[in-house]
């Protein structure tokens, strides 16, 4: 279990977590990058921006 850096909710993690893996928070939907596995550390993954008003 780790904490989502976006919304603060608990994020369930699977056992064979790998650094660089992208997972999404089931509460807020944020994409999170695994930056360490022992203990697990999550950071917000860069996202593709969209702007349909351009």
């Amino acid at each position, binding site marked *: 279990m780790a904490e989502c850096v976006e919304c*603060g909710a608990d994020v369930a993690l699977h056992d064979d977590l790998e650094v660089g893996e992208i997972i*999404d928070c089931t*509460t*807020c939907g944020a994409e999170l990058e695994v930056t360490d596995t022992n203990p697990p550390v999550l950071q917000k993954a860069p*996202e593709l921006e969209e702007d349909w008003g351009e």
Partner: protein
Amino acid sequence: MADESLSASVVGGSGFTGGELLRLIDAHSGLEIQQATSRSYDGKSVGSVHPNLRGTDLRFSDPEDLESVDVLFTATPHGVSMEQVDTFREVADTVVDLSADFRLDSEAQYDEWYDGHSRPELLDEAEYALPEINRENLAGADLIASGGCNATATILGLYPLFEHGVLSGSEQVVVDVKVGSSEGGAGGGEASSHPERSGVVRPYAPKGHRHEAEIEQFLGTSVSFTCHAVDMTRGASATCHVFPDGPVSKGDLWGAYRETYEDEPFMRMAAGGSGVYRYPEPKAVAGTNYGEVGFELDPSNKRVVVFSAIDNMMKGSAGQAVHAANVALGFEETAGLEFQGLHPVGAP
């Protein structure tokens, strides 16, 4: 918890929300449909009006022939239930009304927002149906008022901000709701005909919408409220612009929304995350009792923009009514309401 099936009838069963009630009762493990009344379609099969219910044996009956029943859902035009409430309560132990007749607290509010009230002494007895804000008063309630669709969308979106002190009530709140055509009911009118209604983004209530009364009652503040009719059949999507007096962080907002809704069975949060649907979307909740809420922080002008999406006939009416009945009668809250929607799906 109720351990045996209860009988349920629907007054006004031929309307859109009446049809939704019949669909939900059909799927409910604890409710057994007894009657669906319709003066216009007396004797016709329910499936002849609601094609999604074809195959059921139920036929509409005359409202004058209302039989005793455990739970009565009344999907009548505003003003009817207050006139017939004695009859409804004589035949049913629990009455859940989908009109506006018992939503507000006082006769003065009905004088201001509607055309007065003929049974104001019952307003104290009635409980507002939205469990997310009134669950503690619903258990055992026998007169329940299902909330207005636009009010429900707005209240669900803004409620966490008031509950957690992000807003105090002194700030300006601007609400813009986009609604589908089913809000106008099955009767329709010139403005609802397909050539006139399709493709519009029509401001139909720029100010003074009656649902402002409910919003004010439950949030404790007035809002600047505008409704647009847009090209959907189902759905209400509220965009609320608020300007908190003090500094607010995204963490504050997530804390408020998570603490308010994390344990709610029918609330989902979507606030920028990932994927195609990053904010609340009526398509994602069409046909379901789910409500979606989300927000974005706009520090450049000290604004928080809040989004909320519901199906107006479900979370905004029939689904809310069944949810409230489940709480009142001791059923599992999710009974009959488990449907999670469709994806992908076209215009809802």
